[in-house]
């Protein structure tokens, strides 16, 4: 899991600048310039990782969230492509479509042009588009660190649920009468 970083301005500036290198153990690493996050790639190359990273962010843009959250999706797609040759081919061909759409690598296009390119793929019913879109909905929003950004607290049973932790703490409306909402039972 990439490291969680807090400096919003810094990673906005860096967005889309990730690099690829072969690490000491022979693993291919994909990381941002100051190495605040890195993922390991098994089968995707640098062009593929950069295009997919840009695609995931263009699909589900959250300006306050850094590339490391989107890199989780790229890592998951890479892992799936390693297991499944069909997925590998789909991604490889799809990256070709992305990078071939406007004479520049997809990651170097403006956000507006990237959106246009993706709209064109979607309109054609492109399976690569749907694959990456589905994977992003699943992996990006299934990240506990991303949940914090949305104010979602996740698993609660280990804290005794919300019975004594704010399940009825909304203060901007009066409490409903007891016949509609009886008092809680604390045991």
């Amino acid at each position, binding site marked *: 899991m990439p490291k969680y970083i807090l400096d919003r301005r810094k990673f906005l500036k860096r967005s889309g600048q990730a690099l690829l290198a072969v690490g000491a153990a022979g693993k291919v690493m994909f990381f941002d310039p100051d190495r605040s996050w890195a993922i390991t790639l098994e089968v995707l190359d640098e062009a593929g990782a950069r295009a997919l990273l840009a695609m995931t962010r263009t*699909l*589900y*843009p*959250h300006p306050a969230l850094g590339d490391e959250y989107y890199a989780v999706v790229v890592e998951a797609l890479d892992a799936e492509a390693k297991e499944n040759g069909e997925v590998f081919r789909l991604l490889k061909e799809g990256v070709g479509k992305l990078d071939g759409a406007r004479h520049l690598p997809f990651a170097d296009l403006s956000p507006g042009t990237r*959106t246009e390119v*993706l709209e064109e793929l979607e309109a054609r019913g492109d399976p690569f588009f749907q694959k990456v*879109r589905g994977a992003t*909905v*699943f992996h*990006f*929003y*299934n990240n506990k660190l*991303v*949940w914090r950004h*949305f*104010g*979602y*607290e*996740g*698993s*609660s*049973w280990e804290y*005794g*649920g*919300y*019975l004594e*932790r*704010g*399940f*009825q*703490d*909304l203060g*901007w*409306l*009066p*409490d*409903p009468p007891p*016949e*509609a*909402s*009886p*008092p*809680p*039972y604390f*045991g």
Partner: protein
Amino acid sequence: MARFALDDDSVVVVIGSGAGGGTLANELCQKGINVVLLEAGKRLTLDDFVNDEWAAFFQMAWLDKRTTSGSWRIARDFPNLPAWICKTVGGTTVHWASASLRFQAHEFKTRSVYGDIAGANLLDWPLTLEELEPYYARAEHKMGTTRTEDRPGLPGNNNFKVFYHGARRLGYKVVHTGRMSINSRPYDDRPACRQIGFCFQGCKIGAKWSTLYTEIPKAEATGRLDLRTEAHVLRIEHDRSGKVTGVVYVDREGRQQFQKARIVCVACNSIESPRLLLNSASNLFPDGLANSSGQVGKNYMRHTTGSVYAVFPQPVHMYRGTTMAGIVMDEAKNNPRRGFVGGYELETLSLGVPFMAAFLDPGAWGRAFTRKLENYSYMAGLWIVGEDMPQESNAVTLHPTEKDQYGMPVPNVHYDDHPNDIAMREHAYRQGRALYEAAGAIEVYEVPPYPSTHNLGTNRMSEKPRDGVVNRFGQTHDIRNLFISDGSVFTTGGAENPTLTIVALAIRQAEYIADQMSRGEI
């Protein structure tokens, strides 16, 4: 726990351990009848449950291949997931939100009350509310339903608070935390609810009723239950006289077994139950078992549903506490002046961020969509559940070419909305929107139906054998020792969440089976 021999033809075989099958098995065992309960899924414990939407989904959802067709949006967005139901001991009672509502009297006689609705295959139930009332009472007692007997209602959470005020300002009268089979006080050796907020993922403390930790262990304690998990039934066999003789299933090790039976009860939910009957076709029954009416698999209903989520200027944190925390019942009556027959309930609902991303607007992307999600902690939400029209063309059929892991044809689920369903949903969206605007909403999202949780009607109950598959006790018209024991027997769907009715029918069916056995009729 008991073990019965494969060639023991004195046992009752129940297929499926959910609200229908789990309850029926226990009721039969309590009456001294030996039961082999075959469940396709694994047995989970409370310790196995996780407060994590996708992890729990992959732990318990029925994910065997299914296909879809028709104009419903599910066929486009979730073509292989028509239904959101479970493959685990306890079936969908592990996942259910636990709203436990009785049908209204008129909902048992919709053909008489609603009249002839073009395109709808309406039929009166061969059963009245009055006849079912004592069984409803026993079901509520069994399940510990709140606001019945002396059990208080549950406390409302933040989501309910918003819902309540909007509803009251809109003029609704019957608004409260509902009749829920979640303990508001300790009951039946299970604790009171801790407002954990993951009812759909399996209740970690067992405060919510599920056959997994109520009916099934009680049945085991009688010494008359032989529960076989990861036992996937392929077909039901019969003799030359047409009586069923037992079932062929694949066991945990992948071996085919044949379990003999005196009686077979099918309780596999409204997709798998008709599929099993259709997959059991033989020379004697070329159209599938119990299908002389041609109605097996037909009249598939899934309730007219949809959700409304609204954004408020101040935080709500709707995910804290019971997933379904309150109800408006004012729209449940039949009032054709609204432009449709039948009625609907409004019930609060909450999804976590992972499911909200998947279901808020399936297929949507881009900044307009992500901006909505960023409002998550300011959202309140409700679910619409209304009576949909039975239509003969809405059907579970066998796929002509696709096969499952055992080589059996997979089910295809076809659904088109009836004009009455559309009119009802539009009315409910308007009312849901008005409710939240009355509470001060700054944005409202109309959310399309999720994969179906209320699957009904595909082996419907009828007075006359030509109109349906089973009689008033769930006994098939064609085969005396073959019963259907789940929501597929619903003649029509009502506006209410179906589980309480499924449980009441199972209790009643157990009495009938025991009586028929003791008389030597079966």
